[in-house]
């Protein structure tokens, strides 16, 4: 249940009202995502402006909730500077409102191509929440932790006289190669 949707349900019965409200959501979300993506890449406004072939003062104006003069061309240049694809879609009002309500640093972060999990490994969790972030230091630590846990469990079930792969069909290290893939899923 969304407290915001409940509040907006009667207000959105008015066409002019809902379009004005959604437009403000769009402006707010674009400006916020540009800032989040820039900070995710540890770029300054000057660096990003230079990569996107624009002046820093212009970028500064765009990184503000009250900016509304977006053009697809400008957004394409920013996408290129972030090494991201630009996606422009038409959405239902409910999706816009829920996205806006759930907006956070994490939900707006996106991996550049080099950190895009789908292009790094053949077997990967394709869940959107994971794909959005890509690999983080926390994911790598989780991966290492999970590998250790699997090794530990392997020792627990190991028979005393066990040498290598025995008749049980289990080898403590057999899943080690798969642990990297498994941890990718856990990280999501």
């Amino acid at each position, binding site marked *: 249940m*969304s*407290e*915001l949707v409940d*509040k907006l349900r*009667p*207000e959105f019965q*008015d066409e*002019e*009202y*809902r379009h*004005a*409200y959604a*437009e*403000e*959501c769009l402006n*707010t979300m674009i*400006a*916020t995502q540009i*800032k989040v993506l820039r900070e995710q890449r540890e770029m300054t406004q000057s660096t990003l402006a230079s990569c996107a072939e624009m002046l820093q003062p212009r970028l500064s104006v765009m*990184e*503000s*909730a*009250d*900016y*509304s003069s977006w053009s697809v061309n400008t957004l394409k240049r920013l996408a290129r500077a972030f090494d991201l694809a630009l996606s422009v879609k038409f959405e239902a009002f409910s999706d816009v409102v829920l996205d*806006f*309500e*759930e*907006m*956070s*640093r994490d939900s707006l972060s996106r991996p550049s191509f080099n950190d895009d999990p789908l292009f790094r490994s053949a077997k990967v969790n394709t869940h959107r929440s994971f794909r959005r972030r890509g690999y983080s230091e926390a994911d790598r630590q989780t991966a290492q932790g999970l590998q250790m846990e699997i090794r530990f469990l392997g020792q627990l079930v190991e028979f005393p006289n066990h040498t290598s792969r025995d008749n049980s069909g289990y080898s403590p290290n057999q899943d080690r190669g798969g642990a990297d893939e498994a941890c990718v899923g856990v990280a999501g």
Partner: protein
Amino acid sequence: MLAKWTIFDYVDPVDGNLFMQWSARLQKKERAKLNQRLDSLAIHGPGLIPGILSPTGTPSIFKLKIHGKVQLRPLLCEGPGRGEDAFTLLLGAFEISNDYVPKGAPLMAARMRECLIKDVRRRVLHERVS
């Protein structure tokens, strides 16, 4: 998601909730933009959305910049209670030709904030005008 920040309206002892009265006089489209900005502040606070609060040049008084045919400049302060996750809407204003209407609006808002600090009963939970 529940609102993290509470929004209040300043209440004048004689004229009542001036911010609500100002909101009620706005066109529908302007009211929608204002409500979206106030929802942004209530849900996300001042930390996530860049430029959601702009300084006015008067200490502790901020403005929301809402563009359109009419430039809305609602004036507000954080708190003013210490450590509370709240904002108080003090005064509804416009910006016309780089000047506030009413003239000197940030100073008026600062005086309202002082009154509120002296008497915390001079505010109510924000009364939204749909």
